[in-house]
């Protein structure tokens, strides 16, 4: 047990963001190096947490608890369990690789990194919070910088529209969820926002059935659940590369995770009542998302819709409410986070050089950036659930969960998405990286920098390690899932 390590992880980025603002704006080299050092430190700390988590130990570890507003029952209470420890590591990986990829930001890099770090603090905060109020607090901290990051540094053609759309969607979602949370606070009669206490509040069945949809959908909006998903591809596309990585890689997990933590775990009876129809929405996510991805001609939109499809598998796994489904969904959060971060990183590298994202206008890039092409292919294999990579390890139990939960028809329909995913990934790979270089791109393309290769290499390494040796993550996830099942079993 390392004291204060979670607080260090949560507050390091935001403090570093503040320090950044005092650095001379003209010295870009210094700003980038400082940001990189901080990101690396956050990455290291998250590795320390991950590898010091004892799967056989108590449910929550590295716990810290201080009073914050004792009159309202609000405390600063943090800790990680088997589901969040991998997510903390995921956040560390994405912030580190995201900063590396952002070396090319030339407009006000100081402010860019400062906002990115505020965002990172918010994300870390949500994953480790054990207090409902703190969770909301960090949640808003994570959503707010997205607006600025997209509106100021995004793709010029759609950034204002996308930033506005994204922020409105997410704020409305979080307000709805907040109403539900307040209802829980008052109905419990415990006078506390502490989630561990609320887990034992024994809300009545009517209360749970009424409030569950509010809380669940409020958060699931950020997880991209159908029909509230359509902010997400727009947001992904308009955002600058590192923000897209963060957004699809981590932020969407934030929504899914909060829906699980607050919705399913605090209102288990409501979950049992409503999830059997919600699972149909997730099916739409999975299959429809894949088909929409297939018809995109914009490289980044394709990846954006693939995220909608894959995040559907996460909520689908949650909705099965059984061991296999939950294990699969928890692994899928990590696997998808790493994979999609890599996708967006590579798309960003291609766009930086080619200045177009139209798939038909690209071609033959493997000769110029072989490393990026191979990394993209590996992520593509993860995406189509190829065995030997993390995607298979995650998706297989989700489907088993569907069978075990008595949803054979959903399993059969959802599996179509795998073939569709294979089709659009292969199409993109063969169009963008193979074939001939279009004449307009002659002379524009060159290899990626060594630091970028390092970033892609780290992401690939994680996907392959989990795929070949799933036990590196499973005991942890199993311990977390068993705790969730204990709560659900009481219903």
């Amino acid at each position, binding site marked *: 047990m390392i004291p204060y390590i979670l607080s260090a992880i949560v507050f390091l980025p935001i403090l570093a963001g503040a320090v950044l603002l005092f650095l001379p704006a003209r010295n870009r080299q210094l700003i980038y190096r400082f940001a990189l050092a901080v990101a690396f430190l956050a990455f290291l700390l998250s590795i320390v947490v991950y590898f010091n988590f004892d799967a056989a130990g108590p449910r929550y570890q590295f716990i810290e608890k201080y009073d914050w507003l004792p009159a309202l029952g609000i405390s600063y209470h943090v800790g990680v369990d088997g589901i969040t420890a991998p997510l903390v590591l995921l956040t560390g990986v994405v912030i580190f690789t995201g900063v590396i990829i952002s070396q090319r930001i030339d407009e006000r890099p100081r402010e860019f990194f400062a906002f990115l770090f505020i965002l990172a603090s918010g994300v870390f905060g949500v994953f480790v919070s054990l207090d409902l109020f703190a969770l909301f607090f960090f949640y808003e901290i994570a959503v707010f910088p997205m607006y600025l990051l997209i509106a100021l540094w995004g793709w010029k053609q759609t950034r204002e529209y996308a930033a506005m759309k994204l922020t409105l969607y997410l704020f409305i979602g979080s307000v709805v969820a907040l109403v539900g949370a307040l209802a829980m606070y008052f109905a419990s009669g415990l006078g506390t926002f502490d989630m561990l206490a609320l887990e034992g509040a024994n809300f009545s069945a009517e209360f749970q059935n009424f409030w569950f949809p509010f809380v669940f959908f409020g958060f699931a909006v950020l997880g991209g659940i159908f029909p509230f998903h359509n902010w997400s591809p727009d947001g992904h596309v308009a955002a600058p590369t590192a923000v897209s990585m963060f957004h699809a890689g981590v932020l969407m997990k934030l929504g899914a995770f909060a829906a699980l933590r607050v919705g399913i775990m605090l209102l288990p009876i409501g979950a049992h009542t409503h999830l059997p129809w919600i699972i149909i929405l997730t099916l739409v996510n999975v299959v429809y998302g894949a088909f929409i991805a297939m018809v995109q001609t914009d490289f980044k939109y394709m990846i954006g819709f693939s995220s909608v499809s894959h995040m559907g598998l996460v909520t689908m796994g949650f909705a099965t409410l059984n061991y296999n489904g939950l294990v699969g969904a928890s692994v899928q959060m990590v696997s998808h986070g790493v994979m999609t971060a890599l996708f967006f990183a590579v798309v960003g590298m291609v766009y930086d050089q080619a200045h177009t994202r139209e798939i038909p206008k690209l071609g033959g890039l493997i000769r110029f950036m072989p490393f990026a092409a191979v990394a993209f292919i590996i992520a593509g294999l993860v995406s189509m659930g*190829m065995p030997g990579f993390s995607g298979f390890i995650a998706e297989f139990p989700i489907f088993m969960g569907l069978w075990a939960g008595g949803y054979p028809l959903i399993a059969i329909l959802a599996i179509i998405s795998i073939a569709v995913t294979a089709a659009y990934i*292969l199409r993109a790979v063969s169009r963008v990286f193979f074939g001939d270089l279009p004449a307009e791109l002659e002379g524009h393309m060159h290899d990626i920098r060594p630091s970028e290769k390092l970033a892609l290499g780290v992401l690939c390494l994680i996907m392959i390690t989990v795929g070949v040796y799933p036990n590196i993550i499973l005991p942890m996830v199993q311990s977390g899932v068993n705790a969730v099942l204990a709560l659900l079993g009481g219903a």
Partner: protein
Amino acid sequence: MQLITDNILALILFSPLLGGLIVMLLPSENKDLVRRAALALSLIPFILTLVAWFGFNASPEVDGFRFQQQVAWYPAINSSFHLGVDGLSLSMVLLTTLLAPAAILASFSVEEKIRSYMALFLALETGMLGVFLSLDLLLFFAFWELGLVPMYFLIDQWGSKTGERELWSGMKVSARRYASFKFMVYTMAGSLGLLLAIQMLGVVSGTFDMLALFQSWPGLTGSLFGLSVETVKAVAFWAFAIAFAIKVPVWPFHTWLPDAHTEAPTAGSMILAGVLLKLGAYGFLRLVLPLYPAEAEQYAPVLALLATAAIIFGALSAYGQTDFKRLVAYSSVNHMGFVVLGIAAAAFATGTESATIALNGAVLQMFNHGISSAAMFFLVGVIYERTHTRDLGAWGGLFPLVPVFGGLLIFSSMSSLGLPGLNGFVSEFLVVRGAWPIFTLFTALSMIGLFFTGAYILKGIASTLHGPLNEKWKGHLTDISRREVLVLAPLLVLMLWLGLWPAWLLSVINQAVVGLFG
């Protein structure tokens, strides 16, 4: 030494992959080094297989799976890394490790991106071996899918350079891109049912271990998901059967095959026809028959009908081709039909003497077809490299120009035709002998199909070697080189050896057949 014999299967399985990684580390400028290293590395799994073969033969009477290894892999869903071989899988492993060095030697003429090519090839070998060696369903599926990836890239990147295919709305793509995409998506879509059925099996029985499943699954009764067990089993049976039928391919699921085989590079076609098609038949034998004996018996006549259709239509289609490589590709549909016929017969009359004979024949036919189709594809590749055409009408009378090539082509063709004294005859005879009392009509029709086999084989020989000499090639054609003869030599030796004295292989195959279905 002890270490090697204790882990022999894991070593066989991973030595090609490791070899592929080593190849990637070599300097890409030195093409000869890359080629030789790849060849040397591909001989390692072959030597290890021979070690296993002799270890196996030392006590052929022992039943069940040998050299088993089990390591925890994915305990959260009770799947383990479990390897083991019986006579059936060992003979397929031998075929794979034998064909891989031959195919790599055949690829010495590849010039582009040779390092990636060799690495992918070796990775492909690991994928195929994994299917034969796995005793865990999840692992089986993992390798089943993994083998697709290197093959996709081999066809897409190193396939034939000419030819275009028109897609919808007039968009054109190169033929190799079309073929590789079709191969990948067709096979992946086909295996989705398999994936679903495996998941369901895992949920119902709580394990993916084949040995445990063979015990518990067929005897399962009661109801699942509100349906009767019979219905669920029938659905799962068809999911398995269709996935494997696409891979074999059983008529009418064969349409990916001519495209993929024709557009693949020569060595890729050798492995596709030689080994990849065997995966489907192996799946029937390893999983469908033991897991679904009742359903297999019920639907065996359908399978036999499709097999007959494959034999007859495959032969007729082959005869109708003007492209030599496509002709050989369709001949695979024809020959694999006999494998399926043998399997169907065995499924219908499990335990009888005829069934045992048919099944021995089917497995031997898998091995034989692997050797002879690899040889045929290689020979087509040899003449294509010299003339840059595969059109049967473009040659003619080449025998005097390339006498050695001509002799080898005739020899391999005769093996494919089923000439007594060569390997093809033995296995087809066994299948026909075994299936005759079980499916008399289908077997009789299949034998008529054999007549067309003779026709297309002779067409292939006649339009290349005989007839009036096409003057165009005079002075431009060199005979087969020493390296190319070296590729063929082990295959030709086996054709003759198995034709004259098949007992050494049949005794090993029979161990598995009797152990599983006796």
